[in-house]
């Protein structure tokens, strides 16, 4: 469950956005899109691990890909790592997106916001492989930070929105969905909480899976840092790290 994985590539693909390819035997345990790894970027760096989603799993090559935004101390340090270096990876962790919720011929809508986009890539790959039709809506702040549009386009119709209108449609992912009247059997989403809330409110009677973020300690369910409430209970809870990060809309309080 823990390995010093080898960095195969670590390249910038948009402003502050990096694509990291890792090799190691842990890849053989990685199956489900939406699962994440808990990464210690350096021995002498920041104390805690950083949760990062799996973006692409390639078991034949024994490689996986992660896309991250270099923002704070840990991810900035990570962005300086070179091919050949290693990083300490714990994972795969958590419960990912349910691919089995759909069968061949059905329609999935995948909605990603900002740095919530990456886990949708492996999800799209697995759904398409299964014969599911996917439509993808990606929301970003601005043109500079858009990534993977063409990659997603190879799986299905792909729409991009930017908040400032500098690329694609101006507005939010919900605007895209309305504008194009996109429909689906199952909706899968990952991104900032306001986006997830909007989607949950928009489609209260449909099958919606949401991937949540929360500050983590252990990443494995032991420290109770990452809990969220369950509707209609004072004490019931779910842990984002081990019960999630993907929940069915309605399962937890957003």
């Amino acid at each position, binding site marked *: 469950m823990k390995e010093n994985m080898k960095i195969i590539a670590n390249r910038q693909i948009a402003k502050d956005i990096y694509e990291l390819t890792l090799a190691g035997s842990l890849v053989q345990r990685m199956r489900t899109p939406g699962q994440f790894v808990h990464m210690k970027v350096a021995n002498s760096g920041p*104390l805690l691990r950083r949760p990062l989603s799996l973006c692409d799993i390639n078991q034949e090559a024994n490689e996986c890909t992660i896309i991250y935004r270099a923002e704070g101390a840990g991810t900035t340090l990570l962005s300086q790592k070179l091919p050949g270096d290693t990083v300490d990876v714990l994972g795969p962790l958590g419960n990912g997106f349910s691919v089995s919720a759909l069968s061949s011929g059905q329609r999935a809508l995948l909605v990603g916001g900002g740095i919530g986009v990456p886990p949708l890539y492996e999800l799209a790959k697995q759904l398409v492989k299964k014969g599911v039709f996917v439509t993808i809506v990606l929301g970003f702040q601005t043109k500079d930070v858009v990534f993977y549009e063409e990659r997603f386009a190879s799986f299905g119709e792909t729409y991009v929105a930017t908040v400032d209108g500098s690329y694609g449609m101006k507005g939010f992912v919900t605007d895209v969905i309305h504008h194009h009247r996109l429909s689906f059997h199952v909706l899968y989403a990952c991104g900032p909480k306001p986006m997830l809330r909007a989607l949950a409110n928009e489609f209260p009677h449909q099958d919606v899976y949401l991937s949540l973020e929360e500050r983590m*300690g252990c990443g*494995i369910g*032991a420290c109770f840092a990452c809990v*969220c409430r369950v509707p209609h209970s*004072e004490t019931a809870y779910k842990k984002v790290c081990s019960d999630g990060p993907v929940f069915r809309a309605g399962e937890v309080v957003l």
Partner: protein
Amino acid sequence: MNRLAVELPGLSLKNPIMPASGCFGFGREYAKFYDLSVLGAIMIKATTLEARFGNPTPRVAETPSGMLNAIGLQNPGVDRVINEELPWLAQYDVPIIANVAGSTVEEYVEVARRISKAPNVHALELNISCPNVKKGGIAFGTVPEVAAELTRAVKEVSDVPVYVKLSPNVTNIVAMARAVEQAGADGLTMINTLLGMRIDVKTAKPILANRTGGLSGPAIKPIAIRMIYEVSQAVSIPIIGMGGIESAEDVIEFFYAGASAVAIGTANFIDPYVCPNIIRDLPNVLDELRIDHISQCTGRGWNNGQTVYCGT
């Protein structure tokens, strides 16, 4: 001879390494990483009378060489701990130290009474020092008389030895230690977290929803060492030391300061295997230092090799 075996009130430990309360849940998650029977003991998560949800999130924040937490004593309540968690833990050959918390003396007493009867609970750890709850918690941990009264009340009902967990957020830690020793504590565990805070530069808001939280991790190690050094010279009950331990060398440093066993908290989050790794490394470190038995390390920082607390 087992060079790591340690005898403490109520506890025959195969080694002096145990996960610290709140950093190991009730063991279920770490059991996926290794056999819990390798541990000296397990300090389970703080237990209160009723189930508690705890504080809103975010509950953790990173700091230089440390972390803040404000979990707020989330736990399923004493009865579910007794009925669900402790029986599950009984499959492992490892004594349990039950961390007891509450808002009133009565609550502490009731939790202690019930949980001390569980067959695999070999000792209680009185959490008089949790900085993350409004009522009780830290108040019990900062006034010697209040701590003493609580200790006395719990001792009266407990079927097993009682360790009191000291808060470092005090002017005079020795006075606290002496007060609870006098009141009948069988041992001390120290230190709990230091009260700290971080404010987000972008939003100007505290990062923790609870605003303040408890600082743990390597950052606090020198404070823990100093306090254990002071207290161990002032009391004659044993100390289970904690605060920033990451390695076998750190364990030795805590023993030198005056600890007779240690607990590992935050480091479990960084490396889930840290406890078994330290247990594996300790004999080698003892070899390098030409020390036969870990107990000989206790208090060496001040006693130059005299015997201090050495079990019974």
